[in-house]
């Protein structure tokens, strides 16, 4: 059994303290009684109360969830298709352009993506609102999904799908019954990634949104530009808690599934 040296312990402690202290301090101060966020004046949950009564924040939260749900779902479908194309389609005309367009949005600065989409929407005279933000988010999120899914598809044995086709399955059946169950964990984590990217995005949403479609990040940004506010601390705490529970649950479920699969395989090997 190897022991950690003092150097490694210090590095890990300081590193993780740096990563987590700001968020912990933010959570602690969200329970501060005082309006002055820097002076501790006793425990209180009143900022959560004012937050839940603030109609503007509730509206923004509802818009954000709608946008994130729609865009991540469309992005997952399109991104899985794109991953399938990149890994399995072989050569087709314009392949280089296609893979270029898949990878370029990943490194494109958000200000450029946002600006170019806004200019497109203005040019087509499309009224800006929830739908334009969904279109914008879908476009960059599908690229992330396709990267996640294609890394899983790359290790997928295509002979399985071919066997299903030989046994009479249609291409769609072969995909649904054979390929999809195997790549499903990657598809789900792609969806989760797309969902959080959309929840989080400020820049692209600011460019492509219109009246009546203010998302939560836009609302937060305009509120904190002038300084720290206890209400935003409360909102941030809620978002951090939701994301943390979500991520930990997802990882526990994946872990349990992996363990169960390993057990099934062992049982299968024993009975054979």
């Amino acid at each position: 059994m190897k022991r950690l040296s003092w150097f490694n312990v210090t590095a890990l402690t300081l590193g993780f303290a740096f990563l987590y202290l700001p968020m912990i301090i933010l959570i602690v101060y969200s329970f501060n009684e005082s309006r002055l966020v820097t002076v501790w004046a006793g425990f209180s949950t009143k900022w959560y109360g004012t937050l839940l009564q603030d109609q503007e924040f509730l509206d923004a939260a509802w818009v954000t969830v709608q946008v994130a749900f729609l865009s991540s779902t469309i992005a997952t479908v399109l991104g899985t298709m794109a991953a399938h194309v990149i890994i399995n389609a072989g050569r087709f005309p314009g392949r280089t352009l296609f893979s270029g367009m898949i990878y370029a949005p990943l490194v494109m600065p958000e200000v450029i993506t946002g600006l170019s989409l806004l200019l497109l929407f203005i040019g087509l005279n499309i009224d800006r609102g929830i739908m334009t933000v969904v279109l914008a988010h879908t476009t960059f999120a599908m690229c992330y999904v396709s990267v996640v899914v294609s890394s899983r598809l790359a290790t997928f044995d295509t002979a399985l799908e071919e066997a299903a086709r030989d046994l009479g399955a249609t291409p769609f059946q072969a995909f649904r019954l054979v390929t999809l169950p195997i790549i499903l964990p990657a598809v789900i984590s792609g969806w989760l990634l797309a969902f959080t990217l959309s929840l989080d995005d400020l820049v692209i949403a600011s460019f492509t949104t219109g009246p009546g479609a203010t998302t939560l990040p836009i609302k937060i940004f305009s509120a904190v530009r002038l300084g720290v506010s206890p209400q935003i601390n409360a909102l941030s705490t809620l978002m951090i808690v939701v994301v943390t529970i979500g991520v930990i649950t997802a990882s526990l479920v994946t872990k349990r599934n992996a363990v169960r699969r390993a057990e099934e395989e062992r049982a299968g090997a024993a009975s054979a």
Partner: protein
Amino acid sequence: MSDTPSIRAMNFALGFMLLALAAFAARLAILFASDGWDATSATGFPLTLAIFIALAAGTLSAMSKMDQDRRTGFLGATVIGLPYVWLLALFLVPFLIVLKISLSDVALARPPYMPQLDLSEGWSNLTAFLSDLDFENYTFLTSDDLYWKAYLSSLQIAFVATACTLLIAYPVAYGMARAPQEWHATLLMLVILPFWTSFLIRVYSLMGILSNDGVLNQFLLWTGLIGEPLQILNTKLAVYIGIVYTYLPFMILPIYASLEKLDESLLEAAEDLGCSRFQAFWLVTFPLSKGGIIAGCFLVFIPTIGEFVIPSLLGGSGTLMIGKVLWEEFFNNRDWPVASAVAVILLLILIIPIVLFQRSEEKSREAGQ
């Protein structure tokens, strides 16, 4: 192969369809440029949509014919065509529009730039339109020192911040790789978790710490290290801290991945051969983790250059970064042509690190095989 000629014919047809799609993209840009578009929007949009759907359907059916030779049918064609058309329409075309507007002049009109292309009076207008496009905005960018200073300062901030992130991330990644095996999953989770938490909230959480009456200054005053609060928020230092804080996971993960694969018997061998522990680290561990270091540096450097949220929340008015300049040019000054030109040059600057990054990724992939 007996069906090779037919595949070739289909490829030809497909190439033609893609060309038509590109022409459609050009048409979109032209429609965009013409002011008449605005007035005829009631009929204009359905018309464009109809052209778009017709072209997409044409491409799809051509692809499905080609795919029948490979027994995948219409579905296979949809699978290629749908994301393809989506990205053409919402990634490539918008970028071409930015390129075009960057060559236009600002005008007091709606939309606020000119020339506008008006095709109602025949194609002669097209040549007039093309001759009105010029590089004036680009020459303007070189004449006003705000812009080149902003580009330089973005590059400098990105460079210094990447170096700082590396210095902090490496010991953490090293400690993680050296930790007992049963800790690895938990430690990895702890690094990934902030990545899922909102970027905006993490930048915001620093505001309450770095401000003049913030937690850090209160702590330093309490310890007696300083007599009066330090001005950290709204300086370049705050931007560095913000970048290191938010991008740290991007640097830790690739370095950890490369250190975790390291065969520890190599280190034992080095020590057996008379290396001190530090020499063993410097001569064995460090060179073997170079791949992770390079990947991490690019993952931090590339997105930092165009960063907007960090300089605008933490940097104050004194910190110049090009992402913020572009935002202000567009939203505050409403100068679309200059904002577009700023975007085009930013992209040209980014191409260099992106190409270098892809090269090094390819090299490491080849080495891995």
